[in-house]
């Protein structure tokens, strides 16, 4: 069955405490050159089939369910080639 991947990131202008904690950890570990780490979510939806209607619905779900538009942005929606396992 095909998989649709929805990716959600915290809004750039808002605090991302997770990313901040990881950025701090990298610098304490002496890893140079990482300016910022931001952490978002990756949703993998296994669906019956993919067509425009399904994609439109996923888009709607991405905005309403998978992300919270007050604090997050949906950055991408892609269809995974279902022959390749993720």
């Amino acid at each position, binding site marked *: 069955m095909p998989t649709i991947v929805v990716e959600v990131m915290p809004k750039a202008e808002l605090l991302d405490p*997770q990313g*901040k*904690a*990881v950025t701090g*950890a990298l610098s*304490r570990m002496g890893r140079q050159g990482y300016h910022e780490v931001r952490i978002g979510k990756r949703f993998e939806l296994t669906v019956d089939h993919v067509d425009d209607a399904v994609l439109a619905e996923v888009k709607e779900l991405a905005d309403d369910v998978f992300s919270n538009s007050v604090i997050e942005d949906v950055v991408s929606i892609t269809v995974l080639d279902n022959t390749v396992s993720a």
Partner: protein
Amino acid sequence: MRIGVVTFPGSLDDRDAQRAVRLAGGEPVALWHGSHDLDGVEAIILPGGFSYGDYLRAGAIASLSPIMTEVVDAANKGMPVLGICNGFQMLAEARLIPGAHTRNAHQQFIRRDQRLRVENAATDWTTGFTQGQEITIPLKNADGRFIADDETIKRIEGEGQVAFRYVGVNPNGSFDDIAGVSNERGNVVGLMPHPEHATEPGFGPDTPAAMSSGVDGLTFFTSVIQKALVK
């Protein structure tokens, strides 16, 4: 006995662990995450809390702290180490004990007075219990679900590394109702519930005898102290 309690940024039950050590007759020593100095302690407690907000994975960032290099080293040489809740998660992230923790199966933070069965009364932290003894210890966590692959589970079950098991209710979906695990040698023990919160009459879990009178947790600390005395 001098017992170190490590404070990480975001540690919460560190002073409670110190108090428990004191109530058990030991001398608590505050240790700092950013240092490489174990200050000559004879045992170490990694306390509960949300170190670094538990933001990456519970206990993950703390397990990379400078002091953890020393803790891992000392543990491998046989020093008793107790990881409570977040400390348990750090032990797993540092690979001192097998397995890992994920979010509670029901997705919520849960606080409850939890019945446990002592499955191994031979570790450094459990000798004061009898095998199979049932105790009540407060539990409070969001990422308390202990998991490991089948092979690991089989191994730790077989080798007696399951130190505690949840009784009655499995509060977080942990595999095999596992509440606490030790390393092979039995000096490193991690568990989700908080023994330090069942050490002082009046501030512990309720018992049939009286409210807040449960002190089953005290035995963790007296066990390790007793063992040091015998040595």
